[in-house]
């Protein structure tokens, strides 16, 4: 009996819309139909407390505000639904986890969409707004996502070394 875990993360901002959307009955049912039975949510410094009672086929639902490292939680997850912050996205992609990025339209400029769109076009992740999340979960084929080749930190470090005169 498999017990697949969905992990939702909003980073250091708040993104109540995403939490409300994910904990809606329709989405929980669709996720459960794909074999997910546990839901863990990192909800940020939000006043909003989601309903964590087991329902819609989910036997375990948990919410917490912030943790210094989400690495362990991410490792345990089978699907990650994240805000568009580069930190969370890269962490999830590095762990080679299927990733859905949901963009927050309330931030001042919508640059977060740029990254999600680009990585989605390149086939590394799915991206969606809160409104379209249900449709995406019904349609998505997670096995078709490509493995992310890794970010450019190493190349950046090499440039910094050259600029500073280190070998």
């Amino acid at each position, binding site marked *: 009996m498999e017990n697949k875990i969905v992990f939702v993360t909003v*980073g*250091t*901002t708040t993104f109540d819309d995403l939490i409300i959307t994910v904990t809606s009955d329709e989405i929980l049912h669709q996720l459960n139909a794909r074999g997910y039975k546990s839901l863990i949510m990192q909800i940020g410094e939000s006043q909003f407390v989601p309903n964590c009672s087991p329902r819609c086929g989910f036997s375990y639902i948990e919410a917490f505000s*912030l943790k*210094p*490292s989400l690495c362990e939680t991410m490792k345990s997850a089978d699907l990650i639904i994240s805000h*568009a*912050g*580069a*930190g*969370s996205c*890269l*962490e999830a992609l590095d762990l080679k986890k299927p990733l859905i990025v949901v963009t927050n339209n*309330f*931030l*001042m*400029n919508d*640059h*977060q969409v*740029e*990254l999600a*769109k*680009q990585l989605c076009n390149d086939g590394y992740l799915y991206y969606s707004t809160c409104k379209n999340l249900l449709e995406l979960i019904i349609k998505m084929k997670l096995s078709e996502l490509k493995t992310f080749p890794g*970010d*450019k*930190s*190493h*190349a*950046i*470090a*090499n*440039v*910094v*070394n*050259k*600029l*500073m*005169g*280190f*070998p």
Partner: protein
Amino acid sequence: MVFPLICVLVYPIVVFALIRAAYLVVFEHGKGLGRRVAPRHAPAKTLIVLGSGGHTSEILRVLRHLDRANYAPRVYVQAQTDRVSRQKVEEFEGDSEDYRLHAIPRSRRVGQSYLTSIFTTARATLHAFPLIFREKPDLLLCNGPGTCVPLCLVALFFNALLFRETKIVFVESFCRVERFSLSGRILYYLANHTIVQWPKLNGSRYPRSIFV
């Protein structure tokens, strides 16, 4: 009596700094990798600017690939309201004692209006002066959280005064695919070098940047 004296002393210094800063911005910054850099043998004191959430993780990823013996000591600067960066740095540094962490007032919250940003940035700049003056870093490494604009401004001011050469390296966040961030548009000029991760932030439109 004191006031005119201060004016007479400070005025030429400030004018000199402004003229030389303008010279640096126009003629020296953004020369890319074309220029030969003298090999460095002593470790470089490195000031690293942290930001909320994503910025800190991103800059620590770069640091992971740098030899810590070369970039030492490391001085981290975070915004006072930042609750998670300290833990991330402590986790990253582990047992090392070759680092310290400072906090300065936040210069701009995510979503704050441009007008009030000017005042909060001015306040952060006042805090940046003693910090940069005391630390005199060889390298200022940042990836564009609001906190880094005042620090880079002050570092440029001291560079302009021939006070100390701090190399300002700005790495635009991986998030930025098509356009520079607000701090990015400023730092593109203030920083000695701008490193970008997507081709649209390079090329003929942004000839100063280094694309990796």
